[in-house]
């Protein structure tokens, strides 16, 4: 109902955001129980689309050019660091695809050991996701400080 209105206050937006986050959390555990990763994947995309739609209707959050600059710089720096780490891990996955021969060669009929087991890939991706979030938050705080977000007022 709130999403149908043309305008929205930021408190309403935060309420909707909280509800969506909570729903996603429930769906995450539900999809773990059902062993259905597709459920949370689809729900996540829908949830993010709903958040973006709701944010467009908020009238009392001013996103001015300084905010845009802080976001741009934090995103650019995050990507600069992240792609290096991501590529370093991805090289391991590529080796898995290419099946680089190991020495001494395994006995005929036996499967060589995985370089990066599929379960481990999940942990690696979780680590990368956390790294990206920490990098972005860190850079955002740095640039916010640089462009005067924590300046005290004499008024």
């Amino acid at each position, binding site marked *: 109902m709130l999403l149908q209105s043309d305008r929205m206050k930021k408190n309403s937006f935060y309420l909707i955001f909280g509800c969506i986050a909570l729903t996603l959390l429930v769906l995450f555990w539900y999809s773990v129980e059902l062993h259905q990763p597709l459920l949370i994947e689809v729900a996540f995309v829908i949830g993010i689309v709903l958040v973006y739609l709701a944010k467009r209707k908020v009238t009392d959050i*001013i996103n*001015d*050019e*300084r*905010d845009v*600059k802080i976001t741009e710089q934090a995103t650019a720096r995050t990507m600069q660091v992240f792609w290096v780490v991501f590529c370093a891990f991805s090289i391991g996955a590529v080796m898995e695809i290419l099946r680089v021969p190991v020495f001494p060669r395994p006995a005929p009929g036996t499967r060589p050991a995985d370089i990066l087991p599929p379960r481990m890939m999940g942990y690696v991706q979780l680590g990368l996701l956390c790294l990206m979030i920490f990098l972005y938050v860190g850079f955002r705080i740095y640039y916010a400080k*640089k*462009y*005067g*977000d924590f*300046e005290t*007022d004499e*008024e």
Partner: protein
Amino acid sequence: MKNKIKVFRAVHNLTQEHLAQAIGVNRQTILAIEKEKYIPSLDLAFKISRFFGVNIEEVFIFDEKTPTILQKQ
């Protein structure tokens, strides 16, 4: 880039909040410009000077010693 926004605000008896609302930015942005932590875009600089009814050069003073973005990088 130095500026005289604080002086113009005092002359017009305006708070940072009022000026920010009038030109459609956050109060923190006005504070950051006043403290020379953030250099506004040409568009915003024009908006501020037009709001005070003066030329852009009267509010913003170009300082050649200030390093450019490329020099900073």
